[in-house]
């Protein structure tokens, strides 16, 4: 995909200046254009009476397309080794944190814990490291979990189509990769070391994954790095592009907001809860059928509040460090410096970021039930992952 930065700039400019009449028009349409989407992101649309109207419309569309249900998934961190320097990320290679890569058996142990909690959709997460987190390692992890897990997704460093194909064949069906920021200048400033510096290679990851046979694609911008309306417009453009070209994939958009992490990075911009809500509503109104994902980065209050506006997928009870659920890998903790491990001791590996909703999965499910939503734990079946047609 070639990012059309002129168009993004133009739409972002429009978003800043859109009038109440533009918002009215955008709200009235049945199918919305990117210009309508921009109007829904405008300061005009965040006026109390408009934001409520956005929320009502977004809620109605969500219920219509997804029903009164919330799908659940859990992240499982495999490794926090990483060869990239990303200023905002706890796993950044220059952070002297306690690191570990779980063995395949340890991964299975962590997964057993999540299975017992009810999860049937699992997201395997790891830092980018060709040695510790090799494609063979990932393939083995997927193959090990496949008999028990109806749905396995990955959030790992971008790979080549051929490498993805091996992982799809092992049984994975979802691929998540955030662009982090769609602002090239900010991207360059944030990613100062490692292969992640290549903006365009990362941007094409979802398409490579689709070509390899992934059935679910997740994208998103990490909110807190660049002007949020720019990011929102770029995400929408990326989504439109993928919906047309990767037409058989189920697309999801995540809304990760920057959280405290090792390295003490301060967000470059602050996105308010109100703006988060506006972003959720605008995405829903723009893409009625696209899944929206909200993680435990957000507080219980905000998660409960955003759920009816358009969120369709939630994690719960998450840990963002390898071994976080059952203490696996504790005996192997170390610091990695200059590619070398230095043995070290500690209670557990360090986290990627701090979570804000520590409620147990069944507590979140019970709260959603009170709100009139059923938690759906299984919404896929492994038998649907046996077909590996190339595209």
């Amino acid at each position, binding site marked *: 995909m070639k990012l059309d930065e002129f168009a993004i700039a133009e739409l972002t400019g429009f978003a800043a200046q859109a009038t109440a009449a533009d918002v009215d028009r955008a709200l009235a349409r049945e199918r919305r254009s990117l210009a309508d989407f921009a109007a829904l992101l405008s300061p005009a649309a965040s006026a109390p009476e408009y934001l409520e109207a956005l929320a009502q419309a977004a809620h109605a569309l969500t219920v219509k397309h997804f*029903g009164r249900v919330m799908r659940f998934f859990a992240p499982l961190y495999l490794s926090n080794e990483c060869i990239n320097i990303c200023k905002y990320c706890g796993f950044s290679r220059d952070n002297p944190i306690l690191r570990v890569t779980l063995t395949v058996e340890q991964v299975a142990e962590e997964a057993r814990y999540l299975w017992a909690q009810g999860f049937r959709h699992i997201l395997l997460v790891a830092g980018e490291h060709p040695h510790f987190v090799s494609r063979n390692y990932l393939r083995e992890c997927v193959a090990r979990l496949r008999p028990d897990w109806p749905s396995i997704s990955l959030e790992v460093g971008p790979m080549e189509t051929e490498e993805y194909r091996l992982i799809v064949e092992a049984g994975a069906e979802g691929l998540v990769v955030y662009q982090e920021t769609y602002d090239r200048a900010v991207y360059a400033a944030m990613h100062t070391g490692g292969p992640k510096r290549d903006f365009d290679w990362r941007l094409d990851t979802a398409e490579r994954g689709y070509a390899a046979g992934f059935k679910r694609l997740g994208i998103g911008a990490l909110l807190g790095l660049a002007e949020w309306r720019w990011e929102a417009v770029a995400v929408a453009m990326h989504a439109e592009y993928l919906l047309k070209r990767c*037409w058989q994939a189920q697309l999801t958009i995540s809304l990760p907001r920057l959280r405290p992490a090792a390295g003490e990075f301060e967000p470059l911009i602050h996105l308010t809860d109100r703006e988060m809500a506006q972003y959720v509503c605008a995405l829903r109104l723009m893409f009625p059928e696209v899944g929206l994902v909200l993680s435990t980065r957000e507080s219980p209050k905000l998660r409960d509040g955003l759920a009816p506006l358009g969120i369709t997928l939630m994690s719960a009870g998450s840990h963002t460090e390898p071994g976080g659920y059952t203490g696996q890998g504790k005996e192997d903790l170390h610091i990695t410096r200059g590619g070398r491990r230095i043995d070290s001791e500690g209670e557990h590996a360090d986290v990627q970021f701090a979570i804000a909703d520590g409620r147990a999965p069944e507590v979140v499910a019970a709260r959603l039930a009170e709100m009139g939503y059923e938690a*759906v734990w299984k919404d896929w079946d492994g*038998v649907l992952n046996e077909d590996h047609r190339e595209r």
Partner: protein
Amino acid sequence: MTDRAPKLRIAGRDFSSRLIMGTGKFSSGAVMAAALEASGAELVTVALRRADLSGRQDRFANILEFVDPKKYVLLPNTSGARNAAEAVRLARLGREATGSAWLKLEIHPDPRYLLPDPIETLAAAEQLVKEGFTVLPYIHADPVLAKRLEDVGCATVMPLGSPIGSARGVETRASIAIIVEQTTVPVVVDAGLGAPSHAAEAMELGADAVLVNTAIAVARDPVRMAEAFRAAVVAGRTAFEVGLAVPRRQASATSPLTGFLDEAR
């Protein structure tokens, strides 16, 4: 009256109700069970991908527990399958897990509008009929495809009124009328029926049954909405059997051209 049987008959089995229910999108299993009861439906479809197919009584995938097999004929569906091979595999596993050889064949490779793939659907239907399934395929309102599916032994055809969950009603009206005219198997209008009036319209057109899910599941009161659809289906069917008045341009036309024929009286 038409020559159609008074009861809905699918694959040799009679149903008093012409409303088939879906089970997705409900706020809880209990609400779904209550809506099923209120709808009077006897045939109920469940997405296999939401059910436990592993045989380990997974309580986190227990949607089937809310569909009493003594009250309902279970119609598992292959929603999630993107091609014939996936649908066939899912169907086989579903038959093992549920014991039901009835199957709503759904193949929609496009997760956005969930529109059915005619080529894959025909291929899968042919295979599944051979394997002994009672196949009810979800299709676009394509009269030729309907005949082709009938030819390979499908128990019904299920043309869509409009995209799943869209609540747009019977947008495919003209094609559905042709399907009703041409097919020898029951015609079930599936998908897009957002209001009881849409269901009544489909029944008035001569559909043998309708399948409703979203409109009931996401209603403020699913039980009462199920009752409303139940009544609408009965009303539409009754009207069809009685025969609807033909709309006229003028009120009570006289016979200016043929009046002279009565002169002898």
